[in-house]
């Protein structure tokens, strides 16, 4: 997924000069675009419109649905499921911060300190992708098992006392608590943070570090004033690539959590596939989409990297 950030790279070579207009060639770009764009319009954009229309329909599965502009569905959905919305934002936010804190040293290590190990570490970051993420998420059930070594160690160090007090864990358990869900989310989306971070760190000229050192900057100052600001594009796209999928995820909450850790994705999935309440499900999904788009736009504006898109 590093490719997403590569898009913002300045073209290394100058753009080809616009070709002299030829009558025959003028339609070529449209023919090249047509099939792919048609696909996206029919199977991405059109469904969004269908979903919008479904969300304001009333009726039942047996008698069929009609568009009645019943906007109350949105109000009902929000007033019933706001805890799940809030929880999604909170868990996804916590996972994003953790990904940044954990991912930055590794990206830095690959970019500047790995030497000839660079390719090997890179492979080890990407290779887990090829084992189904569901299998790997299930492995966390073993790692965090009750009475297992991890939980035992956390207990001995009295970490669980603190996290229980904060409400992140419950008693001697880590599984089926918010901590387990956040831990799973962090794990699942960590590579999406590391790859963009690495791409932008790798572009930094090493001589800038030397120059900072020559001007008597301590390593920490060099990092704060030179390295980190220059890696901002990676930080922005990394946090987006982590936060967005984490906010809509329901796999981690289902496999590692309990009924008390249900996120908005779980609600949408249940409404759509089990309860078959399509208007409510569509309304929830629409709210999630709008919230994410609003947040992303605001964030990109604030961080001043509008050329990201």
């Amino acid at each position, binding site marked *: 997924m590093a490719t997403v950030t590569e898009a913002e790279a300045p073209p290394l070579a100058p753009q080809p000069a616009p070709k002299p207009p030829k009558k025959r060639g003028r339609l070529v770009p449209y023919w090249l675009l047509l099939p792919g764009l048609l696909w996206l319009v029919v199977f991405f954009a059109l469904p969004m419109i269908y979903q919008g229309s479904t969300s304001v329909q009333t009726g039942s599965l047996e008698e069929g649905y009609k568009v009645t502009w019943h906007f109350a569905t949105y109000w009902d959905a929000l007033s019933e499921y706001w805890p799940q919305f809030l929880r999604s934002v909170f868990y996804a936010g916590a996972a994003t911060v953790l990904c940044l804190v954990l991912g930055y040293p590794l990206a830095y290590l690959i970019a500047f300190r790995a030497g000839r190990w660079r390719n090997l570490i890179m492979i*080890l970051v990407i290779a887990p992708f090829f084992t189904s993420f569901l299998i*790997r998420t299930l492995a966390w059930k073993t790692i965090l098992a009750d009475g297992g070594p991890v939980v035992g160690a956390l207990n001995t160090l009295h970490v669980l006392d603190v996290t229980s007090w904060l409400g992140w864990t419950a008693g001697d358990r880590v599984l089926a608590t918010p901590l387990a869900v956040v831990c799973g989310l962090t794990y699942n989306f960590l590579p999406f943070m590391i790859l963009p971070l690495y791409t932008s760190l790798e572009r930094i000229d090493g001589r800038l570090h030397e120059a900072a050192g020559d001007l008597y900057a301590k390593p920490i100052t060099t990092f704060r004033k030179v390295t980190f600001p220059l890696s901002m594009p990676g930080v922005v796209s990394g946090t987006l690539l982590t936060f967005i999928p984490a906010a809509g995820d329901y796999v981690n909450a289902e496999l590692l959590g309990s009924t008390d850790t249900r996120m908005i994705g779980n609600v949408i999935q249940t409404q759509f596939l089990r309860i078959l309440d399509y208007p409510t499900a569509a309304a929830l999904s629409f709210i999630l989409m709008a919230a994410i788009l609003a947040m992303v736009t605001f964030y990109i504006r604030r961080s001043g990297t509008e050329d990201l898109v």
Partner: protein
Amino acid sequence: MPFVNWLKRHLVVIAGLLTLSYLLLPNIVVTVFSFNKPKGRFNYQWQQFSTDAWKDPCGVADMCGSLSLSLQIAFWATVGATVLGTMIAFALVRYRFRARGAVNSLIFLPMAMPEVVMAASLLTLFLNMGAQLGFWTILIAHIMFCLSFVVTAVKARVMSMDPRLEQAAQDLYAGPVQTFLRVTLPIAAPGIAAGALLSFALSFDDFIITNFNAGSTVTFPMFVWGSAQRGTPVQINVIGTAMFLLAVLFVLVSMLIGNRRGRQKA
């Protein structure tokens, strides 16, 4: 305090390696537990060493069928998304046309949308059309979400390409078709390959969108999901381990080949 100094100097390396082990720990657990002989239906607790599952990887009903279905879907989704995405990427870099901004955002949006939103809205479309959910609806969905990633990968590569190479080919009397096949395509190939590889991985591993649009068809990720409720056979870990090893092997071999080529050129 030599130790403190050493720690200070290598703090980043230590933290980075800790993160790396956090990333690899589940894979190690998956591998170790592929040699387990669990007592109950769930393979979450270590009991005793056994190679039973490795000797009979398809010993679980329906698992290998779902695996082969996932491979087929991933293959066709990769072909579809790579062809359509490469065409769009070339149009975006090489030509000027109207509504460029709209095209760019139509390509960016699927990557910025939570999967569950795309999954749910696509299902409303299929339900409204009365489409039969199964192989074809999964394939349509997978091509849809892989497309944008191919476009970004190929675009990055074509943008960094020196246009003078193509002009040189034309100066040497190569026709437009010949220039494209013998100069442009080989240079764009790494970008196309990266996009294709990403598509295959994304499609093969996709769960959320497939779960909504598969009907009663079961892909491998859906089989794993179902088994998390019914009981996890050890064979799942065998498949997971084998895929991890194959991926590492594949990357190592392609890197060796790349290195050798690079040396020959030098």
